[in-house]
């Protein structure tokens, strides 16, 4: 174990890591790369959308990167995730390739779903991605079902169900939490509280305390600073291990913020949230800046190394956009394919 790794261990409070995983410095750098990749990806989505190259809607994840990166760091490739309409970050963090992601967003044949799903429905069995879901809380059942299958089949896979705090208003969430705890299913309910249900502050839609909800079912729960990727990973890893070993479900409340509006077109938003609030979150609470500062301060990386990471990922993302823009649309005859297996 290197000095840098030991320092990282001390700073994160995380142990030597799961067998087969790299040491903690590698993990910190990997999470840093994942967050930068998501940020660069979303910047390009914003650009494609505003240049009218992307049809439909774009719900951006920038600001929330630490959650996807930190939780997926605790998962294996075979583990499952379900995602949301704000799902690009989850898909990338679980291992999706940016070129095929962009192709899907542009409705191209080369996309993950042959252009049939789009931004809100990216799915990829190869990386355990059961699919992003455009119904708020629509994937709670799918995630719990995948966890049911994992337990029944004994394959030790864990499923993470990502959802926003808006899903707390949906009854099916509580049906699934009840069933998951009743049957001790290996599912992690990851509630990303970015404060706004679309254009409405969550305090106007949510009675009682969020953490009282898992407590009511006796589900182990933890509240985490969703901007601190080290804290997210440190909280997620033991819960994932516990679920994998048959300990049952867990609930994570991850406090975070979405930098953009509900979607790219949501520009004039001062009526529902103040500019000062946006600036506060995007400043010292930015997840990439937080981890970058930590790596520099602890001497785990220097500025040149972090810049190099950014430059390499920028080249990769630009190439991915280029690939997607140039890729052909599906032939119209494709419209009737895949309705039935």
């Amino acid at each position: 174990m290197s000095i840098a790794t030991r320092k990282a261990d001390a700073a994160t409070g995380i142990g030597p890591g799961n067998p087969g995983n790299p040491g903690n410095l590698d993990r910190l750098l990997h999470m840093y790369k994942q967050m930068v990749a998501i940020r660069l990806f979303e910047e390009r989505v914003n650009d494609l959308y505003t240049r009218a190259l992307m049809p439909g809607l774009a719900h951006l994840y920038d600001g929330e990167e630490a959650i996807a990166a930190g939780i997926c760091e605790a998962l294996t490739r075979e583990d499952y995730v379900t995602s949301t309409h704000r799902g690009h970050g989850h898909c990338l963090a679980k291992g999706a390739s940016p070129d095929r992601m962009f192709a899907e967003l542009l409705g191209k044949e080369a996309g993950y779903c042959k252009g049939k799903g789009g931004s809100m429905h990216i799915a990829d069995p190869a990386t355990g991605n059961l699919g992003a879901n455009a119904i708020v809380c629509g994937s709670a059942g799918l995630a719990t079902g995948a966890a049911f299958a994992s337990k029944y089949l004994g394959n030790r896979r864990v499923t993470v169900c990502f959802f926003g705090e808006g899903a707390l208003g949906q009854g099916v969430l509580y049906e699934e939490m009840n069933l998951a705890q009743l049957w001790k299913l290996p599912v992690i309910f990851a509630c990303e509280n970015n404060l706004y249900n679309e254009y409405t502050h969550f305090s106007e839609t949510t009675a009682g305390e969020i953490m009282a909800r898992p407590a009511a079912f006796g589900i182990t729960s933890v509240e985490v600073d969703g901007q601190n990727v080290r804290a997210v990973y440190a909280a997620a890893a033991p819960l994932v291990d516990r679920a994998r070993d048959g300990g049952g479900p867990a609930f994570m409340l991850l406090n975070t913020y979405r930098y953009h509006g509900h979607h790219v077109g949501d520009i004039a938003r001062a009526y529902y949230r103040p500019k000062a609030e946006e600036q506060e979150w995007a400043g010292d609470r930015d997840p990439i800046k937080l981890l970058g500062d930590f790596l520099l301060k602890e001497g785990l990386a220097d500025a040149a190394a972090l810049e190099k990471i950014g430059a390499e990922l920028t080249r990769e993302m630009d190439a991915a956009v280029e690939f997607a823009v140039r890729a052909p649309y599906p032939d119209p005859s494709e419209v009737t394919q895949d309705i039935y297996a």
Partner: protein
Amino acid sequence: MLDTQSAPALRDLTFGEAIREAIAEEMRRDKTIVLMGEDVAEAGTTFKVLTGLVDEFGKDRIIDTPISEAGFTGIGVGAAMTGMRPIVDIMFGDFLTLIMDQLVNQAAKIHYMSGGKWKVPLVVRATMGATRRSAAQHSQSLHAWPSHIPGLKVVVPSTPYDAKGLMKSAIRDDNPVVFFEDKISYTKVKGQVPSEEYTIPLGVGDVKREGRDITFIGTSSMVQVALGAATMLEEVGISAEVVDPRTTWPLDEKTLIESVKKTSRCIVMDEGYGRYGVGAEFAALVAEGAFYNLDAPVTRLCAMHVPIPFSPSLEDVTVPTERQAFDLAMKLCGR
């Protein structure tokens, strides 16, 4: 000593027994099949259709759930995507309203939305049918709803033989299949079922009775009513054909159209509502496909367009009867 080797391998089973036998045989064959729903284990469902299954397969495979239709159907969808073949039991078809998002926005669309990557081999069993004095929320026949959605398959069997063969195909299908079971038929409809293995493909209709003068297209409970009317018509010299599509999707369009081309008249019978219903689809289909052979307007005879009432004197007039089918056929035949 009796020669059991050459004895006919046909047994008389009820509709419900045939369904139970199909599920049991498939569960013996494939360990990834589980069945979940409310009171399905020791209780064997409220209709006792599954009695005994928990003794053979245990509570890990015949699974009692909380009263959370959306919750356990969602689990069925997710488990189907990840290596299992779940059967979800919706006690009353009326409760389909509670699982519509899981069925319509999730199960039906996952294969298409994922570009064909994820499959959902799920069976949703639901009941249908009125005249059990169960009133408006436990009596509806809502098979038109899933039939409307691309990505779902819908089965509406009328006989024990069909129910068994179609259930086995539904379980083996890689798509979400909604399987409607008529509650009255569970014990009232009996028929011969071979003991040997067989399946019936989804999307193949069956001519239940051949005739020359008029076609009844009937589904589920209405097949028996159509057959009764056909017997009455025979006594007055009218030869009625009874065609059972057996699945509303995929739909055996050819068998329906060919029958009407031959007989030149058609009454569509369905226990669901006629308006915007399965009957409307059949009627449109034969009107388009057999128009130049028709001697009378294609006519629907379906459930009355009212919430199902409780009082026997009210409920009984909401469901088509043999007498109504007979009278309507007489009229269409100019008698």
